């Protein structure tokens, strides 16, 4: 026990001595937490529309006003032909071309139905599907409220018509703002990067400088050395997490809905798993460049698969299984639940078991792979 305390003392001194690392661990994440959510706004607004009105009728101009006033669209141009509209999409100034055909109003009155052509630039999938969905909502609304005088002749038929009205309620995030989704995710990401990179680099640095050999020849036991490395970074990680929560509250006004105790319990276990991951990488690498590359490689995969920016539910089965095999996925899921919805421990205890599992496996592998002698 006494040996362990001495190692801890050494590690803390090393951490506080290196001002750059200290800044990297505190200042950088704070800045990133402030800047990143501003940049990572996936909200689709201001979809640019080119509106081609061949009909030039009352209905078509009503329709255009309806599109304009919906709040999602900006009408950037009123070209005269489809080709001109496509040009606007090609040079990127429009996302959607709406083409009202000639005689649209007439066929609407005579036959009761008409079709409008909509062409969407689908290279950006999210924007295309959301833009399309908004547009059909606008048209559906318009259908419902088509001028009553026009409907007068068929008043008789209206009696039997059934209408179902949909009322939407947004829970947990009434105005559906994107920052609520992003900020907790980014907090987890920063914790992951710091926890993963810094442990990996720290031990490899001792290897590179040769100081690890000095430790290896002392009577310090394997577990003492490893614990001595892990505990300081565990504390650093939880400090960074606390810092992140403060930034989240001060800058974005997001305070965890659920209990802080549950949140910290998860964070503590997650940090353990993460440190095991860093340790494992360091046992495999021989210099800092390699460690950095390997850590970057895995953290990138973890992040992409974690549901941080795309929903896991819509992934194919194998990808969903793969994504549940990384600790990042589970922790992001839980942090969002606790922070935004106020879930309590019994709602998410399964994730807790998963995280403990990761901790045991990763640390076990790392310790097994760590050799005092070459």
């Amino acid at each position: 026990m006494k040996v362990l305390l001495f190692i801890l003392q050494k590690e803390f001194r090393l951490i506080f001595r290196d001002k750059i690392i200290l800044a990297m661990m505190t200042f950088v994440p704070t800045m990133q937490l402030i800047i990143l959510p501003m940049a990572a706004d996936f909200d689709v607004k201001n979809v640019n529309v080119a509106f081609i009105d061949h009909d030039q009728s009352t209905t078509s101009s009503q329709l255009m006003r309806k599109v304009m006033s919906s709040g999602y669209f900006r009408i950037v141009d009123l070209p005269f032909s489809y080709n001109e509209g496509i040009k606007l999409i090609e040079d990127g100034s429009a996302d959607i071309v709406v083409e009202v055909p000639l005689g649209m109003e007439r066929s609407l009155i005579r036959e009761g139905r008409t079709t409008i052509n909509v062409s969407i630039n689908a290279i950006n999938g999210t924007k295309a599907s959301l833009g399309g969905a908004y547009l059909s909502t606008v048209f559906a609304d318009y259908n419902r409220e088509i001028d009553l005088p026009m409907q007068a002749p068929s008043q008789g038929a209206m009696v039997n018509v059934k209408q179902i009205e949909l009322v939407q309620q947004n829970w947990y995030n009434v105005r559906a703002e994107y920052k609520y989704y992003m900020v907790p995710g980014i907090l987890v990401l920063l914790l992951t990067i710091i926890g993963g990179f810094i442990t990996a680099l720290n031990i490899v640095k001792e290897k590179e400088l040769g100081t690890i050999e000095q430790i290896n020849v002392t009577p310090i036991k394997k577990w003492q050395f490893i614990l001595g490395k892990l505990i300081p970074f565990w504390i650093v990680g939880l400090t960074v997490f606390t810092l992140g929560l403060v930034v989240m509250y001060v800058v974005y006004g997001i305070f965890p809905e659920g209990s802080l105790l549950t949140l910290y319990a998860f964070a503590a276990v997650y940090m353990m798993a993460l440190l095991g991951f860093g340790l494992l990488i360091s046992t495999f690498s021989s210099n800092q460049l390699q460690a950095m590359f390997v850590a970057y490689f895995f953290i990138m995969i973890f992040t992409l698969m974690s549901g941080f920016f795309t929903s896991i539910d819509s992934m194919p089965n194998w990808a969903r299984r793969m994504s549940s095999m990384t600790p990042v996925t589970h922790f992001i899921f839980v942090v969002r639940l606790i922070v935004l919805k106020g879930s309590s421990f019994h709602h998410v205890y399964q994730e807790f078991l998963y995280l403990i599992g990761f901790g045991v496996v990763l640390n076990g592998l790392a310790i097994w792979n760590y050799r005092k002698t070459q």
Partner: protein
Amino acid sequence: MKQFLSFVRKEFYHVFRDKRTLLLLFGLPVVQILIFGYALNSDVKNIGITVLDNAHDVPSQQIMNRIGQSEYFIVREPAADYNDVQSIFKEGRVKCAVVFGPSFGEELYRSGKAQVQIITDASDPNNAKIAFGYLTALIGRYQQEMNVGSAMPYVISTETRMLYNEEQNGSLNFIPGVIALIFMIVCAALTSVSVVREKELGTMEVLLVSPFRPVMVLISKAVPYLLLSLINFVVILTMSYYLLDVVVRGSMLLLLSESILYIITCLSLGLLISNVTTSQQAAMLISMMAMMLPTVLLTGFMFPLENMPLPFQVISHALPSRYYYIIVKAVMLKGLGFGAVWKETLILAGMSVFLLTVALKRFKVRLA
């Protein structure tokens, strides 16, 4: 010329000696393409949905059946009351709830108007919006079918065409971004580290006193990475063609020459970094923080540029990757010719001339 070739050969030895870095170099694009192509989907499917059915009548059952048949939703066990919905949402598997009032069917048949309440879990806002959009369309169709015969008098329907990407292939948007990112990593990060390593080890001195021209030392450093990037480029294009069905619509020659231009820009950046730093650590940190992060963040392939605050948009104009991304999208995905991208090409060319001049000017022939 012979001297130059032997220097290039030396650089190749360095590159091929470090097997792990080489593996990552080619592993990175392969894994990224696979993940972006197969795992990440921008269209939302399998949304967990629950129902709070206080009506238990025919129309409410029919609507729920419709929802169950749709590929967009997975119906989970029904909720008993609002508190139950709350608690189901807190477990996180269900993102949406449909609530029918007790007299839903009665109102629908008697007065012809009835309300359905949709509760969405807006902690994921886009998911909530898309789910609501799907439900609007689904219930709208149900309503139309109910009204057949006594048809609603006027209906404006739309015919939607998805341009450039009819099957809504989610990877299209990402591939140009992945290419831009990989070039940035390979050229800027690896080149700068390889130059600085020679400085750190002291071998740079040996190279500088050789009869070879000092500037050529730098250029011979860049050659292997240029070739590696081109190989990577071919790998990415082949993979995206065979695995993801992404076809290069425009001219291949144009795409290739634009890519070489961008690679040269990145290499100049790498050389510039290596001139201002003295340790591998610093070179690595600068290329990670100052090059890669902005490339991921501000190029526009992951995060939509138009939503960003103004300062970010201004900064993004200084990034070569932004222009390259626009060019690749235009040539590869939209099939446009040089006429559409000459402006971006000119900017990229200007950038690389500028960076290269600064890098070569600042290259110190003598060690301090």
